[in-house]
């Protein structure tokens, strides 16, 4: 009897130490609420990630933050205290990610954000030491757009964006760069994602007669100003942001979004890239895996941000494992150092090379200008 209980006790301690050897990855996505169209493909992507890295079992604990900042912070604390995660991936959107920076840094746990704003990793300080991100900064995309505009002889631009962090972020970046490049911004309008009409804003834009209009929205709601512009007979060029890069936008926009220009991650047009492009292979790899699970044409660039976060981890974990055991403070610190040491990692959205001051690590290989032609994304030279 005694022997039996001793044996059971031994077994259970073995089980506990085994559980501690697993690497726990806490994932926070905005799978419901306003950012759901971004969060759902991200969530789907985690199901495709490797379940074993460097010979260690990896557990992905995926939680939803409902696109809400308070929930994001609450769930981050839950992941840290209850699930004892070694690293956090999340969240989908900027406000949530910014709020999580403090929590992750306090627990000395590395965090990889899937949100766009540069403010998540800049300026580098004691807290942001722990924070990395995968999506291109707004400023990289704004530069691509203004470059394209000046090359195409555009002098005046009107801006219409979401009246939230996304639209405001774009407005700040774009107005700054446009001024530097002598583009005249003649109108700046806002609308809500859920608005049923943007007639007023569009009439105001048209009364200023701009050469081009930039629409800063994400997903299908970004199609509405464009449809209204066409309906009222606007003839100039229309630019969208990389926030629209999913097939639902083409479905809702229909013929009204033909000829639209937008900057996007190379994964959107991976098949059209020249074979010499280093990103082509890694991007196609993700597309193949995602579409095998969710059907042809289902892939979106947002899910690829999650995939890239997974690649960063898979690249860094073997290095960290050499220094410490998962579940310990030392392992988390080693993982942070390993992430910061990422060099020339080919991923779906570009090539990552991190430095102590650059926790994004993407260069101009991470964006291409795309035009919508016959309901398809077509890469521009």
């Amino acid at each position, binding site marked *: 009897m005694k022997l039996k209980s001793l044996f059971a006790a031994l077994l259970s301690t073995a089980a506990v130490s085994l559980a501690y050897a697993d690497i726990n990855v806490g994932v926070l996505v905005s799978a*419901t609420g306003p950012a759901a*169209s971004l969060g759902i493909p991200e969530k789907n992507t985690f199901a495709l990630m490797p379940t074993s890295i460097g010979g260690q079992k990896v557990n992905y604990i995926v939680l939803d933050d409902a696109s809400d900042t308070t929930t994001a912070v609450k769930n981050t604390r839950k992941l840290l205290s209850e699930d004892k995660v070694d690293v956090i991936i999340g969240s989908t959107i900027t406000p949530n990610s910014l709020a999580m920076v403090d929590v992750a840094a306090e627990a000395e746990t590395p965090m990889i954000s899937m949100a766009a704003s540069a403010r998540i990793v800049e300026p580098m300080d004691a807290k942001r030491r722990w924070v990395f991100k995968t999506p291109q900064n707004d400023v990289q995309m704004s530069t691509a757009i203004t470059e394209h505009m000046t090359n195409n002889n555009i002098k005046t631009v009107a801006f219409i964006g979401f009246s939230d962090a996304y639209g405001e972020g774009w407005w700040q970046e774009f107005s700054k760069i446009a001024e530097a490049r002598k583009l005249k911004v003649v109108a700046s309008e*806002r609308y809500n994602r*859920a608005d*049923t009409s943007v*007639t*007023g*804003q569009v*009439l105001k834009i048209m009364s200023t007669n701009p050469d081009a209009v930039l629409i800063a929205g994400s997903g299908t*709601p970004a199609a509405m100003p464009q449809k209204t512009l066409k309906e009222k007979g606007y003839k100039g060029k229309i630019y969208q942001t990389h926030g629209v890069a999913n097939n639902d936008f083409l479905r809702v926009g229909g013929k009204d979004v033909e000829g639209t220009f937008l900057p996007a991650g190379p994964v959107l047009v991976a098949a059209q890239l020249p074979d010499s492009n280093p990103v082509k292979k890694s991007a196609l790899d993700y597309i193949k895996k995602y579409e095998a699970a969710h059907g042809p044409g289902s892939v979106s660039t947002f899910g690829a941000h999650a995939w890239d976060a997974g690649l960063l981890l898979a690249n860094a974990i073997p290095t960290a494992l050499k220094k410490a055991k998962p579940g310990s403070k030392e392992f988390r610190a080693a993982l942070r150092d390993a992430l910061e040491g990422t060099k020339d990692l080919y991923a779906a959205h570009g090539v990552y090379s991190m430095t102590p001051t650059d926790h994004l690590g993407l260069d101009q290989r991470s964006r291409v200008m795309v035009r919508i032609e016959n309901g398809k994304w077509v890469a521009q030279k």
Partner: protein
Amino acid sequence: MTYNHRARRALYFCAPEPTKTMDLQIALLLGQDGIVNGAIYALLALALVLVFAVTRVIFIPQGEFVAYGALTLAAFQAGKVPGTIWLLLGAGVLVALIDATIAVRGGGLRRLPRIALVNLVLPGIIAGLVFWLEPGKLPMLAQIILALAVVVPLGPMIYRLAFQPLAEATVLVLLIVSVAVHLALVGLGLLFFGAEGSRTTAFSEASFQLGTLTVNGQTLWVLGASAVLIVALALFFGRTLYGKALRATAINRVGARLMGISTTMAGKLSFTLAALIGAFSGILIAPITTIYYDTGFLIGLKGFVGAIIAGLVSYPLAAAGAILVGLLESFSSFWASAYKEVIVFTLIIPVLVWRSLTAHHVEEEE
């Protein structure tokens, strides 16, 4: 040139861009846009007043019917089976179980066939039609009727499940339940239709030239259908027995019961009408704007502002208030688009002040 002139000219050149003035053309276009949106808000305001008057429920999920109606139709046109059909079947089974249990306990076995017919057989037939008919290939009118047949029965079923057991509760309790139902329906909407929006094909592609103004066919459909629906409601309340029963319940619940009017019947009927108005509004606007699983809430909220202007009692005032909201929204989106919602919802404050100063306040007997 005087100093003043020079200063003004200097100011003119320094100013980033002079605010564009509104000409008649723009004012007309904005007016048209505002009235079309206002017409939809008016329909929802009427439904909110109706439900509140009869059942004292502030019906927050009203907007969800807008989204469900529009997205069910969009799913038909995309050749998919809308998730609402499963909700209809599920809710039907739940209602049938509850009602049957009560009937068996109370010895009212004769009621069983009717319960089964309304809650199981009818939804079953509707589901059967959706599965076998390929609704996307039917003519527009048949598609609309089928979409309404899927969504409208959800109204009385929700009343049966969520509100009927609490019919005598306070307005506050009913409001809390209403919020809960709203959250549940929004969540289900995301599950059924996904996060991205949809549009449906227009009833007509025609457009008319009215002076300098181009009016497209769908706009006329929205205005015409709203007007017809409002007149039909007026006739229903004024001329039919059921309409009069609803009005009686609204004026005095106890009195109406003493006269043999079933308050349960009145509640279910008002929810049916609310669901019908909501779903139909959604179907009307789906060709003009993209509808999302959560679009309904904001539309419903603006209808609610209209209803508040009417103090949740007067139908014509609610309709007028809703049109005012639509116009205010349209013109403020031209002048100050970043503050549009602020302007629209701030409208409530002076209205509430004015109402509380003028109206006789009747303490509720709670």
